[in-house]
């Protein structure tokens, strides 16, 4: 300023400088698109190809997930996926554990971080949706009816011949309304029949296939004629096509062959317990639907015939009759929820797949044989599923299944979070506003693993559970947590041992680390199963499989952790240890207070990476016969009712694995980026 005055510069511009907007393609979203997506020819090609690949993959996945996949396998087996065959009487302990874990995590978030209003509102909205959506979906989009055929003729297509069942058993709830009518929408022509969807019985499915086949042939003939009329064919091709054309014969329309819906169907609804008729009607295309309100929970039988013509088939759309699953197992004696004794014995359960409604006991019998029932193998969902059926069939039940648990977990998390906040508000000193909550969080984390173990395995007044029954996500988490908690100190000790100046300690550490790192985890697991009992005879029993797997996973992980920690120790400048020594700290104190904290902090990404791979590697315990998450998926899809549903099961467990791994990775990033941590780096 002074120099300007001294030099007497008197050209002063009093006008506001004019602001000019930047050129259109230099800032803003357009510029971003230009610079990042279409910067050069190569960029453009990569963008376009990448976008096509992503869009087609995502579209294919969601088409399958919404229109094709049968998610019942997940909904029905949710308990298996979560806790395997864990004893039902001890289930509350796992639930309590889940609440404790979430509460501690909530406390940790309150102690070290903050939840923004947006995230909180998001969680509340999600919870509300979980509760609100299922009834709304049920009310707004009723489930498509299931379709059954009536008649006495066998429906033949190819080598298959299916005759409609005269009687069909099903289960229903008191107050439910069963509506039966003739399915006129599928009898107009073969195209309507081929495009039918919803739960259909096997004869109807055969009709569908026959109709589809006829339409294919019908389309093929004009195509061949068009080709023959042209002159693009070689004589050889012409001869082949001509032969084809002669062989091809359009069958008469399927709808006509079987007089589809031309004759009325006689339907009768029986009470499954008494075999007394409840209602009956002669249903034709023009008649009013038959509506019956079920008087009680239990079995019913639908009798259906086409009395006027033995050649005719009539399709009945049945609202309220849905496929179910038969389960037989041997139950040991136990105490029921009201304190009554439940006797041991063979139990058969029938579970309706649309809402997991369950009836126990045998099927109704007619003339000494069990009535065939609407089951999920014979009455599968066929055809392209419309979105509303996806919503009411899978999304609503899934939401209903998880909403209560989700709400409890959310409450536990909020209690933990506000526990930490209030502790700080009332008990933390002003200059360190988060001291108390962080101290307590530290001790909570220390206490959690033993508490978890006691709750799961049982100790003292908690009766012990049977380890071979631990399974699903519970077993996966147990193996992971035990692996992390035990292998971490072991790994640190090995890393320090490897840097020790004592030759024996150093040699032993190196030998251990290199030996374990040179053997695949599967081998370690298999070895642990047979070798651990030699070292620890109390782990030799038949019930100790999970414990032996824990030993294997822990020993394996420790070697890798040791190398990670050693990397961190080596990355420290030697001045740190010298400074500690010069201050008079002993070697142990220098390690504990100076080098180790810094080394661990430096290798957080590698450590968390190791924990994540430990979490995923626990899936290998399926090799040694433990029922972890992966093993449950395999077992489930090997059951008769769920054959062919591998994709659904594996997609589901992939999502579970991914969610947990991603949360771990996210927490690690937060720790790395946390304010004090960033400042601590020189």
């Amino acid at each position, binding site marked *: 300023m002074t120099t300007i005055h001294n030099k007497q510069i008197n050209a002063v511009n009093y006008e506001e400088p004019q602001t000019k907007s930047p050129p259109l393609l230099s800032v803003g979203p357009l510029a971003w698109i230009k610079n990042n997506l279409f910067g050069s020819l190569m960029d453009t090609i990569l963008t376009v190809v990448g976008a096509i690949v992503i869009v087609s993959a995502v579209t294919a996945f969601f088409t399958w997930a919404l229109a094709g996949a049968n998610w019942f396998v997940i909904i029905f087996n949710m308990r298996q996926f979560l806790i395997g065959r864990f004893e039902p009487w001890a289930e509350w302990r796992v639930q309590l554990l889940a609440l404790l874990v979430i509460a501690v995590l909530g406390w940790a978030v309150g102690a070290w971080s903050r939840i923004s209003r947006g995230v909180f509102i998001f969680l509340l909205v999600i919870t509300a949706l979980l509760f609100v959506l299922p009834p709304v979906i049920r009310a707004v989009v009723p489930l498509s009816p299931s379709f059954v055929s009536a008649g006495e003729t066998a429906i033949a297509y190819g080598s298959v011949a299916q005759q409609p069942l005269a009687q069909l058993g099903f289960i229903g709830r008191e107050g439910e309304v069963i509506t039966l009518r003739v399915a006129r929408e599928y009898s107009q022509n073969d195209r309507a029949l081929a495009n039918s969807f919803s739960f259909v019985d096997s004869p109807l499915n055969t009709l569908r296939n026959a109709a589809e086949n006829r339409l294919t042939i019908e389309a093929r003939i004009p195509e061949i004629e068009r080709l023959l009329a042209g002159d693009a064919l070689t004589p050889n091709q012409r001869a082949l096509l001509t032969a084809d054309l002669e062989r091809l014969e359009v069958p008469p329309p399927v709808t006509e062959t079987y007089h589809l819906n031309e004759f009325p169907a006689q339907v009768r609804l029986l009470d499954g317990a008494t075999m007394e008729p409840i209602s009956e009607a002669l249903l034709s295309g023009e008649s009013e639907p038959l509506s019956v309100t079920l008087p009680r929970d239990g079995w019913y039988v639908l009798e259906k015939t086409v009395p006027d013509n033995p050649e005719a088939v009539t399709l009945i759309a049945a609202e309220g009759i849905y496929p179910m699953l038969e389960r037989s197992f041997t139950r040991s004696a136990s105490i029921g929820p009201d304190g009554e004794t439940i006797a041991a014995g063979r139990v058969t359960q029938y579970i309706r797949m649309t809402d997991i409604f369950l009836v126990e006991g045998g099927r109704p019998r007619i003339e000494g044989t069990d009535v065939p029932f609407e089951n999920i193998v014979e009455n599968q969902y066929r055809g392209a599923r419309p979105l509303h059926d996806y919503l009411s069939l899978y999304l609503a039940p899934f939401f209903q299944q998880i909403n209560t648990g989700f709400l409890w977990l959310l409450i536990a998390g909020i209690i933990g979070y506000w526990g930490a906040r209030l502790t700080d508000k009332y008990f933390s000193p002003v*200059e360190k506003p988060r001291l108390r909550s962080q101290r307590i969080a530290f001790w909570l984390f220390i206490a959690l693993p033993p508490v978890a173990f006691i709750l799961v395995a049982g100790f003292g007044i908690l009766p012990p559970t049977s380890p071979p029954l631990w399974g699903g996500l519970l077993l996966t988490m147990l193996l992971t947590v035990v692996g992390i908690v035990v292998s971490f100190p072991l790994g640190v000790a090995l890393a320090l041992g490897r840097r020790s100046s004592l030759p024996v300690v150093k040699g032993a550490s190196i030998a251990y680390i290199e030996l374990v790192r040179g053997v695949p985890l599967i081998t370690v697991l298999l070895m642990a199963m047979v070798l651990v009992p030699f070292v620890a005879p109390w782990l030799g029993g038949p019930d100790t499989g999970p414990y032996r797997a824990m030993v294997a996973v822990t020993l394996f992980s420790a070697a890798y952790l040791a190398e990670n920690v050693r990397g961190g120790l080596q990355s420290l*400048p030697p*001045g*740190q240890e*010298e*400074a*500690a*020594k*010069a*201050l*008079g*700290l*002993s070697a142990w*104190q220098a390690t504990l*207070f*100076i080098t180790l*904290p*810094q080394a661990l*902090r430096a290798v957080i990404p590698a450590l968390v990476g190791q924990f994540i791979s430990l979490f995923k590697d626990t899936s290998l315990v399926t090799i040694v016969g433990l029922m972890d998450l992966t093993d449950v998926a395999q077992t489930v899809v090997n059951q008769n009712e769920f054959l062919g549903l591998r994709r659904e099961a594996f997609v589901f467990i992939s999502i579970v694995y991914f969610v947990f791994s991603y949360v771990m990775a996210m927490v690690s990033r937060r720790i790395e980026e946390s304010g*004090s941590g960033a*400042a*601590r*780096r*020189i």
Partner: protein
Amino acid sequence: MSELQETPRATSVLADEEPIIICREVNKWFGDFHVLRDVSVDVQPQEVVVVIGPSGSGKSTFIRCINRLEEHQEGQIIVDGIEMSHDISNIAAIRREIGMVFQQFNLFPHLTVLQNISLAPMKVRQWPREKAEAKAMELLRRVGIPEQVNKYPGQLSGGQQQRVAIARALAMEPKIMLFDEPTSALDPEMIKEVLDVMKELARSGMTMIVVTHEMGFAREVADRVLFFDHGRIVEQGTPEYFFTSAQHPRTKEFLSQIL
């Protein structure tokens, strides 16, 4: 030994007391490389000794031998009446009495300034936290940066870091302070603030051995200057003698280059 010039004995502040550091014919090798050759020197309590010499002459190794960050292989080093040997308890006892300040500060980056200073008194001297933290605050005031108490080293300037390092060494209430080129890693404008702290420390009667290239400091504060070359003490004397009438050609050459 014959090369060592006979020079006037430095005037010790308390010349009649027992020397607090006695080095007799100390020899050290790094592998085959002979770093220290027959170094003999006594340091009196409250004496300030400045060690100068070209790089690689062994001056840093020499003071690192005094608190046994380096091990000497021949000769004797006796500090405060205790001889340096392989006995770990001896080493720990001596290190407690010797503070050291490094060229690269070597503060603990994961601890706050307060924790950096109070850690060793609490863990080594078993002081209660209140006492250690009170001492830390007192020392921070003494080095002039009490307001930085809750910061991490990474948030401080080089000069501030070195002053914290001095405070950290002083927190153990040592009898001797070693400075290993304390200003060499600092920007020029920060050197003064560190030297001022060191001067104040010297005036307060601390026994100090300072390896430095700051000749102004040597001239002003030192009771005695040692000149190292090729692992031996070539010449020593009071600053007046040393900077005006040094005899040895190597000393003269060195001084002519840096003054």
